[in-house]
């Protein structure tokens, strides 16, 4: 008998320390992406496009080639890269301020054109890096630095549901919403991310996985309370599930 490694840091992550706050779910999602890339064996031909936001240095944390796009334009850059080099696997990693606010047009049109790229969308209902301003995905009644009395529908409008908007577009091949605040959800999220990559590898169309994530610092909670807050509030506004699946079985 001897001890064997059951779980360890995936090869596709560089050993660099993450720059995220303690308890932030970005790190979990980074790890899942790296595990999926390892499992699919596509590390040498994958390109990451980092957004503007907390994850702006995401290309540093992966053992992959990558770049940063202008705010919200990650999918426009990804479109160019994928069309110039269709043999590569291109994915973007974007937050809600990047993908759902300034980058709404790029997102919707890239999805509608059915670009063969994958997007991992982190929805934490707030602008994290700039200090907790209201995002389009902020929940009604949620207090942020720019909605100090709580978001009101008559003043700031309703939260935008990215998956529900995109599911009507015919270019989308895989679309799912998930969360990572328990081991069970982490395992299902990994399956969703894998299928979103398979949608690209099988040349089916655009793949997007929305991950409901915490922002303990800007929500003003400790990491455990923030994890519970996702179940209590975010899931009610953003129901989990698979919206589009043209990939079929994981094979």
């Amino acid at each position: 008998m001897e001890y064997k490694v059951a779980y360890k840091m995936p090869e596709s992550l560089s050993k660099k320390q993450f720059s995220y706050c303690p308890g932030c779910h970005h790190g979990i999602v980074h790890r899942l992406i790296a595990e999926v890339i390892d499992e699919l064996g596509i590390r040498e031909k994958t390109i990451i496009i980092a957004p503007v936001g907390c994850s702006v240095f995401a290309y540093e944390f992966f053992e992959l080639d990558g770049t940063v796009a202008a705010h919200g334009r990650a999918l426009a850059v990804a479109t160019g890269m994928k069309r110039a080099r269709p043999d590569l696997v291109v994915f973007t990693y974007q937050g809600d301020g990047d993908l759902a606010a300034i980058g709404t047009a790029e997102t919707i049109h890239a999805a509608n054109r059915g670009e063969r790229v994958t997007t991992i969308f982190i929805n934490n209902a707030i602008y994290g890096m700039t200090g907790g301003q209201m995002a389009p995905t902020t929940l009604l009644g949620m207090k942020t630095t720019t909605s100090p009395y709580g978001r009101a529908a008559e003043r700031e409008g309703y939260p935008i549901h990215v998956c529900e908007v995109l599911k009507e577009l015919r270019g989308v091949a895989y679309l799912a919403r998930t969360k990572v605040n328990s081991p069970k959800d982490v395992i299902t999220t990994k399956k969703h991310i894998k299928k979103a990559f398979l949608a690209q590898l099988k040349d089916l169309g655009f793949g997007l996985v929305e991950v409901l994530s915490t922002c303990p610092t800007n929500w003003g909670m400790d990491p455990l309370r923030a994890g519970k807050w996702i179940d209590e509030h975010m899931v009610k506004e953003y129901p989990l599930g698979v919206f589009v699946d043209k990939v079929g079985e994981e094979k």
Partner: protein
Amino acid sequence: MKKAYIEIDEERCKGCGLCINICPQKIIRFSERFNSKGYHPAEQNDPEGKCNGCGFCYMMCPDVCITVYRLAPVRGETQ
């Protein structure tokens, strides 16, 4: 002989406590020490050998500091 154990990269740990909260055996705790970032890192306290290598701590760790080892038979060895 313990069934399994974990190793925590204390310099990488930010002391968020997600692994401590999720551990089904409740055998992870905050260390008394500080790391160079000023956090109390997590450490395993498992004198009774309760760890079974489920990997929940690894799955929930946002900074990927945990490595899980499980006892496994070597090829050719009889149990």
